[in-house]
């Protein structure tokens, strides 16, 4: 049997478009948060789609989104290397960032009320300020709705690491949000 492996196989192109293009906004959103730059994000997403197409023959599913994200993440890491500003490693996170005074408020604290409605722009800024591994985990969970297992696969870490990163990311974000509210007042 002859298998057509031509790069220009129109059937492959059609299948790929149908499977991958619906996630363009998702991919762009992830790239924006990872790279924190609109132009770099566009380049990374384009690169990701072309690489994904090249490897589409070996794609065995079932979930297209995490598969694309894993590729996109590699593209973004290459971009980090190019920028020569390696992302902050887990160990280098400043102590203060994780020392969240989480239980110092009373239940009726007015800040609690503020939490129920978020200002999108402020939250985007706060997420962007998170250190890289926490930001990545947080975005994959809260914005992309991936399961812990899928996040672990995308980020190539154990599920336990996903869990602890997410807990710390949320604690940091909460602290940052409260600090932001403090400033507004």
């Amino acid at each position, binding site marked *: 049997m002859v298998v057509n492996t031509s*790069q*220009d*196989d*129109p*059937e*492959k*192109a*059609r*299948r*790929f*478009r*149908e499977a991958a*293009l*619906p*996630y*363009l*906004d*998702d*991919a*762009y*959103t992830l790239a*924006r948060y990872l790279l924190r730059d609109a132009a770099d*994000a*566009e380049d990374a*997403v*384009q690169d990701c*789609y*072309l690489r994904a*197409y090249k490897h589409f023959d070996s794609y065995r599913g079932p979930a297209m989104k995490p598969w694309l994200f894993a590729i996109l993440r590699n593209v973004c890491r290459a971009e980090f290397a190019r920028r020569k500003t390696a992302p902050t490693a887990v160990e280098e996170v400043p102590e203060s960032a994780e020392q969240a005074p*989480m*239980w110092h408020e009373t*239940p009726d604290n007015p800040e*609690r009320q503020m*939490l*129920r*409605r*978020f*200002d*999108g722009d402020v*939250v*985007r800024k706060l*997420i962007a300020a998170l250190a890289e591994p926490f930001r990545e985990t947080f975005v994959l*969970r*809260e*914005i992309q709705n991936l*399961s*812990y297992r899928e996040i672990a696969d995308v980020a190539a870490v154990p599920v336990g690491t996903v*869990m*602890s990163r*997410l*807990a710390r990311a*949320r604690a940091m*974000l*909460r602290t940052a949000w409260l600090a932001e509210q403090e400033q507004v007042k």
Partner: protein
Amino acid sequence: MTCEEAEVLLHALIDGELDAGHAREVEAHIEGCPHCAELMQEYREISQAMAATDLRYKAPLELRRRIEKALPQPQAAPSRRSVLRGFAMGSAVSAMAATGLVAIVLRNDDAQRIEAEVVSAHLRSLQAGHLIDVVSTDQHTVKPWFNGKLDVSPPVIDLTAQGFTLVGGRLDYVDARAIGAVVYKRRQHVINLFVAQTANTERRAAKISTLQGFNIRRWSDRGLNYWAVSDIGADELTEFGDKFETAMQANKEG
């Protein structure tokens, strides 16, 4: 369980990621620990507020175009021969209808514009991750969903047994009007069946056309216009339309 453990695991509990055993352990700890209970409640609220906030970015149109252009084209360009054949057919039709030419041209223009819009709606449904508003393979769920959303109740017919799986319904916009789209799948191919009201109640036989590589089967029956759009072959789309019309007929008689 210590507070330290609970402070991590409560996130997995909120996210529904804990197995029953661990979930019970965390819940037991929270019941006896006001600090962790407070924290749990707070993170739950944050999670809900986060879900209600739009934190996504939309890919610029320019990026979409760049990627589309960089990928190999899915449809081979029509051969010169088929273009010529189409042209020859077109002239024959125009010659036959010479007397009513103006009327036909106007009606065709209108029909073509709407066909282009229907194809755009089909493309949007595939690309924007918004194929289905109501997900169901059950026609008795999909049909009532349209009630109150449209001035017309699109017929929803389950054709799974005939090889076309009903996957759901969606509201769309065509010709600046809300229109119902009933979504079917044939293997991995999506078929959007757009249904709109028309003042004309006479039955119009189906016509197949092709636009931007998509096949469109258009017909009218009992005050409704139908457009079935898909990338499946014209023969399969014809089969879909025939089976749909047969089932409609059977429904009315039955």
